[in-house]
């Protein structure tokens, strides 16, 4: 209440200043006159009395000032006055102002851009009900080092019924469906879900309903929910679609609902996009151990992830004996947030650290400029001080001036950040853009604005406080005595400026090391032999679903046809098919060898299970180490054969002749004879190393899984694979016009995916480090130039006394080199510790990489010497006569 009244009164007197002023004047004059009248009654003259009253009670003007300054509106008035004064002063030195604002804009802009990325990826709430309690339920096999595996129905049932940690657990499995009844056949990502999935997430359909529990049966009513996208694209947003029958993979489903457009895909652990269809029909059986489901649970309040995990582990240990396939498997829980941000978290933290460093360097630079400038303004402050300005008043005025600079810098920084975000979105790996679509949105969010504002304020204190405090304690008499001579630099101020330069160089050193390590990492990755040759390879996927391809033989026929027509296309060297592609997803499968046909449960060997066509090794250029590749004689009628990779033969037949060995896949089916040994392939990206692999000819069609779907085409030397897309797709559609073609990409694109994030980090770190190098070089340069200007007389004197040019050069360069050496030393010791933080981002390089360290030391040393050289040249040209004449 009283605050409001005080504000109202303040505003009244603020806007009716003249009126309030007159009233106060009259009142005070009256006050003093009354006091004087009393004195006159005691016999003083009027003049004496007035003087005595003023002495006793305070003069009119001082009293008015005291009364006025006690109000809050006067505080604002002073700020406003300081602000206008600051703007005027800054406009008088446009060079200084521009440099300071640009420097800060770069620092603040980089921070705002990286913060906006962090917000989009790590902080923005996931749009589900109480998302922090939602967890993915997957499983891991610690003894075998397998993580993030899908879970089985038996485990879901046991966990759900025996654990008290969850409010509810839903399950889904991923699938590709082909919707044939509405327009052109097209493959759509879809999910088979339990009916409680959407209620668990707390999302509602915009039309119709979600599934009911009766529909959780494979034999129950077949019902489907459409995504908004699919509804729009295939059903023209027709609300009457509810209740309609649609044909999916040859079966008829009834549409019961449509989900909203803004539904997030972040509940799905591995899909990067939202499914287009959700189908009913998961019946969870307590005995089924096939690992095909993803689980998602809502933790009960009060349960931590660890508590829930240990509860589930206890249950897993109980049911382990039920089936050998359950042995050693334990739950692996992960919050939605952790899953969505994945390994981006560490990359973003490294980048945030880097931009903070850039900002600190920018602040140090501006502080240095301010110190130099305030030395020139020493007279002004001495005069202010002499006229009665208090220290705090001077500090306040200088800080306001700094605030003007940093606010302008912040505004420009915001513009830079918008540009920076565009660049960031262009550099970001696709997977990151999909899990954080906001990254590509460049509109300024109010949080980004608030962050930038906050950074600008902090910046003001960082760069403005030290110079302001320095100025607030001038040696008034000394400075005023020396009027005319620009200033004298106190040793304290000189030390401060040197310290700033040293820290700038140290910070730049750390950034350069970080950037250097990333450059080395990318170089290592670039030279990495993947085990196959990704250049000139086109890949695409044909789902081969529907009635027509139910029989394995029909699929073999389809691919036989496709391969022969594609291989006859001009520009094609060879073509083949495979089930899955290296890096983007091969699937493991158990096998047993003839030597050890019944290994104990939990120790059954496994290998990536790759079904390929005859020319696969040639097309991918995977070298054959022994034996033969597949050929047209490997048919359904001939001997069952397999090609293993070096890793598999090393693990299970080390030192033996591998050719002719036999293995059985999946614990049933025919025994296969090894006819060849292929070279190892980095099948799961560069970080995962080599895995066992077994290749099976697709003509001997496997009874497991659903056969090959990927076409791989190698083009001849100078034909870019992208140019063949049209003709290949045409040929496929000539063979079967109802088969959609999906996932068209070059193998090079696929091979780059795992390094995309490192590439982004590298590009950003290199630009930040470059910025840091420029700023810190400018820092040395400006400090030295300034000190030369200060020491003109001294240098003149030295030269007059016989110092040679060389001596002067050495004097100046040595001064700069000392600072640089100190900075490098500090930066070196900081880097030794800090580079450990970016370990996960590195590949093939140790955090303390001697080459990088030497290179950065050399780079900084050379640039620092160059930065010293220019002012040193100026010092050499000092004319002793002229320098001394100033005295």
């Amino acid at each position, binding site marked *: 209440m009283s605050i409001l009244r005080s504000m109202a*009164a*303040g505003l009244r007197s603020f806007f009716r200043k003249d009126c309030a002023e007159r009233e106060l004047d*009259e009142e005070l004059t*009256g006050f*003093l006159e*009354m*006091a004087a009248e009393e004195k006159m009654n005691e016999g003083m003259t009027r003049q004496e009395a007035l003087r005595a009253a003023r002495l006793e*009670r305070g003069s009119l003007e001082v*009293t008015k000032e005291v009364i006025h300054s*006690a109000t809050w509106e006067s505080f604002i008035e002073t700020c406003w006055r300081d602000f206008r004064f600051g703007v005027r002063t800054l406009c008088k030195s446009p060079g200084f102002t521009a440099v300071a604002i640009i420097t800060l804009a770069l620092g603040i802009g980089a921070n705002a851009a990286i913060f906006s990325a962090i917000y989009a990826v790590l902080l923005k709430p996931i749009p589900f009900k109480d998302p922090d309690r939602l967890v993915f339920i997957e499983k891991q096999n610690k003894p075998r080092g397998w993580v993030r595996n899908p879970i089985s129905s038996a485990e879901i049932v046991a966990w759900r019924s025996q654990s008290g940690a969850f409010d509810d657990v839903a399950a889904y499995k991923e699938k590709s469906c082909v919707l044939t009844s509405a327009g052109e056949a097209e493959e759509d990502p879809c999910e088979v879900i339990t009916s409680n999935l959407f209620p668990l997430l707390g999302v509602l359909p915009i039309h119709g309903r979600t599934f009911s529990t009766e529909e959780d049966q494979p034999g129950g009513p077949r019902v489907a929910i459409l995504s908004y996208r699919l509804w729009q694209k295939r059903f023209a947003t027709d609300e009457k679609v509810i209740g309609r029958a649609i044909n999916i993979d040859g079966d008829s489903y009834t549409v019961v609902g449509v989900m909203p457009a803004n539904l997030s895909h972040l509940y799905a652990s591995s899909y990067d996009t939202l499914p287009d269809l959700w189908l009913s029909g998961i019946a969870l059986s307590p005995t089924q151990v096939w690992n095909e489901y993803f689980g998602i649970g809502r933790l009960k309040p009060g349960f931590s992830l660890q508590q829930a995990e240990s509860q589930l582990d206890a249950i897993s240990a109980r049911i382990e004996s039920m089936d050998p396939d359950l042995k050693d498997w334990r739950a692996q829980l992960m919050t939605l947030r952790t899953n969505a941000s994945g390994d981006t978290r560490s990359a973003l933290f490294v980048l945030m650290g880097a931009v903070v460093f850039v900002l600190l360097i920018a602040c140090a630079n501006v502080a240095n400029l301010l110190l130099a400038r305030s030395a020139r303004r020493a007279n002004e402050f001495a005069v202010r001080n002499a006229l009665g300005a208090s220290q705090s008043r001077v500090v306040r005025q200088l800080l306001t001036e700094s605030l003007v600079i940093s606010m302008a810098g912040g505004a420009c920084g915001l513009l830079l950040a918008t540009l920076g975000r565009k660049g960031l979105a262009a550099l970001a790996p696709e997977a990151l853009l999909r899990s954080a679509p906001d990254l590509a949105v460049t509109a300024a969010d109010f949080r980004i604005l608030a962050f930038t504002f906050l950074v600008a304020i902090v910046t003001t204190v960082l760069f403005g406080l030290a110079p302001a405090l320095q100025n607030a304690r001038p040696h008034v008499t000394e400075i005023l005595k020396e009027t005319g001579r620009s200033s004298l630099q106190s040793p304290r101020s000189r030390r401060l400026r040197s310290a700033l330069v040293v820290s700038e160089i140290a910070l730049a050193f750390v950034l350069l090391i970080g950037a250097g390590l990333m450059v080395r990492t990318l170089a290592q990755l670039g030279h990495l032999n993947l085990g196959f040759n990704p250049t000139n390879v086109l890949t695409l996927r044909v789902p081969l679903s529907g009635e027509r391809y139910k029989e394995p033989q029909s699929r073999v026929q389809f691919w036989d046809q496709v391969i022969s027509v594609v291989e006859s296309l001009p520009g094609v060297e060879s073509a083949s098919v495979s089930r899955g592609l290296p890096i983007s997803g091969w699937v493991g499968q158990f096998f047993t060898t003839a030597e050890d046909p019944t290994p104990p449960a939990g120790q059954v060997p496994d290998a990536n299970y790759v079904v390929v066509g005859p020319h696969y090794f040639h097309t991918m250029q995977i070298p054959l180490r022994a034996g033969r590749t597949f050929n047209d004689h490997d048919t359904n009628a001939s001997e069952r054969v397999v090609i293993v990779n070096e890793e598999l033969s090393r693990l299970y037949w080390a030192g033996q002749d591998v050719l002719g060995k036999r293995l059985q896949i999946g614990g049933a089916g025919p025994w296969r004879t090894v006819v060849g040994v292929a070279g190892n392939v980095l099948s799961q990206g560069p970080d995962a190393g080599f895995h066992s692999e077994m290749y099976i000819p697709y003509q001997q069609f496997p009874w497991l899984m659903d056969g090959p779907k990927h076409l791989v085409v190698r083009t001849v030397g100078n034909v870019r694979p992208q140019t063949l897309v049209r003709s290949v797709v045409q040929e496929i559609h000539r063979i079967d016009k109802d088969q959609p073609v999906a996932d068209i990409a070059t193998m090079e694109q696929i091979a780059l995916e795992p390094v995309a994030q490192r590439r982004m980090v590298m590009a950003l770190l290199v630009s930040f480090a470059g910025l840091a190098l420029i700023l810190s070089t400018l820092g040395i340069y400006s400090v030295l130039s300034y000190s030369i200007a200060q020491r003109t007389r001294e240098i003149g004197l030295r030269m007059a006394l016989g110092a040679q040019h060389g001596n002067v050069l050495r004097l100046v360069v040595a001064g700069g080199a000392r600072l640089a050496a100190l900075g490098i030393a500090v930066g070196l010791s900081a880097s030794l510790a800090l580079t450990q933080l970016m370990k996960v981002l590195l590949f093939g390089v140790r955090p303390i990489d001697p080459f990088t360290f030497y290179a950065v030391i050399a780079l900084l040393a050379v640039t620092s010497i160059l930065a010293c050289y220019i002012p040193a040249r100026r010092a050499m040209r000092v004319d002793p006569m002229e320098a001394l004449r100033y005295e």
Partner: protein
Amino acid sequence: MPKERSDLVQGTLDMLILKTLALEPMHGYGITVRLEQISKATFRINAGSLFVALQRLQRAGLIRTEWKATENSRRAKYYTLTQQGRKRLDNETKEWERQVAAIARILEAS
């Protein structure tokens, strides 16, 4: 020169002004004179602190103002206690007495 001057105990000037105004509306100089007389010139009040206090009290709604003629037919701003001011004075007086009693007890005890 006046006799030895004491500084007011922090924050008590407001209370003393309110007390003075509780008797009758007064102008600024009147308040000063009254305070100095009653305190037997223990306190000397300068214009600055007086008017800052008056401004504060007015903004807090404890007093209101009015221009009137003085007995010497001069125009002056008179300050009057509001209902709220009266309440505040009561509270502050009670609080003050409580504290003084407590302090006195402590001083006597030792």
